[in-house]
């Protein structure tokens, strides 16, 4: 009796240990699942109509000064003294890089405007955004995607293109009303 009681005690202790272990494993699994979902949300994994789509958002670097002229954009970096000119498509993409508009939405609108394949447009778009990201002009955003992007693209689609110019050199010596610009001393 005592043996059985001890066996019972043992088994009950084993059961309770197992229960604790199970609950610990369960909590670990739950934590991992939570983290996976959280990471997925951060990289904008979302489910639409039963399909899972990966999307990214980029946002403009805050130290870049830019202005739109004639449908194109001029970007200037005060820190590096570089200037860039974006063509019509590229400047439309640049304006959409607010950290909340997904690349999917942008690609869809561009493809609709140009009557092109969405996948091809998205490939060009991703390559372009990565190019800007490598130059420090864009950075990945962790913000939530804003549903229904209010992005309208007018005109025909041409692949996005960026040209770089320098700010040149400043005044030769001190700034002067006479000019005298050229290779700075």
């Amino acid at each position, binding site marked *: 009796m005592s043996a059985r009681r001890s066996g019972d005690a043992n088994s009950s202790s084993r059961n309770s240990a197992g229960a604790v272990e199970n609950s610990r494993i369960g909590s670990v699994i739950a934590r991992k699942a939570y983290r996976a979902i959280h990471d997925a949300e951060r990289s904008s994994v979302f489910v639409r109509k039963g399909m899972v789509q990966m999307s990214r958002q980029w946002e403009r670097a805050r130290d870049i000064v830019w*202005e739109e002229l004639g449908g194109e954009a001029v970007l200037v970096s*005060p*820190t590096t003294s570089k200037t860039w000119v974006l063509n019509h498509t590229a400047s439309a993409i640049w304006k959409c890089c607010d950290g909340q508009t997904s690349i999917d939405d942008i690609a869809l609108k561009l493809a609709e405007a140009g009557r092109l394949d969405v996948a091809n447009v998205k490939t060009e778009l991703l390559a372009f955004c990565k190019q800007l990201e490598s130059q420090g002009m864009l950075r990945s955003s962790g913000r939530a995607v804003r549903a229904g992007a209010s992005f309208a693209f007018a005109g025909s689609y041409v692949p996005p293109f960026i040209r770089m110019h320098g*700010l040149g*050199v400043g005044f030769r010596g001190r700034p002067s009303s*006479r*000019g005298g610009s050229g290779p700075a001393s």
Partner: protein
Amino acid sequence: MPQTIELFGYSINVSKEARNNSWPLPDAIVPPVLNVILTKNMPAHEERARRYRSRMLLGEDFVLDYPSQTLWFPASKRKAIMEIKNAGPQRIFDRTILFCIALLAERLGPAVVATPSTRHVLPLYLHASAVATACGALVFCGRSTFGKSTISGEILGPIFPQLDDDQVTMHIGMLNKKTRAPRVLYFGRRRELSTAGSELPLAGLFWLQKSAEFKIEEMDQAEAASLMLSPLVNRRRPIAILNRLRIIRALLTKMPCRRLYFAKEQAPLVELLRANGYA
């Protein structure tokens, strides 16, 4: 007692430096656009400008304090004249004042330099040369060694009077305002231009390109603006860059920039300009 002078529509206070010059300037000094102090102690102000670089600009023969809109200028050069190659004699004082007003508009915003007579006008300085034709002023922009001095001095100078050689100052009408065309300011005194006055309407704006052929080509506004940004005095200030971009955009909206391909020959160049209505 400060003397108020009018220069290209701007009211300027000009005064001699007091013996007990105080620094920082008292808040009571609020100039209409620019407060000019003629000083005999320029080195002291230059030293101060080196120390307070964030608010002051150390220029060639001048020191500008942005927040108080004050310009220190050597009293000895108040009436000094400089010769700009073929552009004739010009007063350094007048050029410096307009240059500083353009810098104030860039750094502090166009509203700072707005006066009742210049309310809808933006000042802009460009790295360019200019000549005067019957249609108005032609402005040639380009980096160093692009041929600005050559085209305005050697090639076109014998036919069209040169206005400026290395830096052109302009007045641009603001966007969405029914104002007159951009005007090129002229600081010299030449007999041929005596009837034109001190401002000529802008007839053509070009970005130079040395070439074997002569032609004029369309140019994108954005590309023209990015090239015309230089030289930028306040190149580290985002708001100054933005202001300058917007002023250039106002210019290009009213007068698009064209790319001018040219060689060192007068006759075909003059013929090209006349055929396109620029002269």
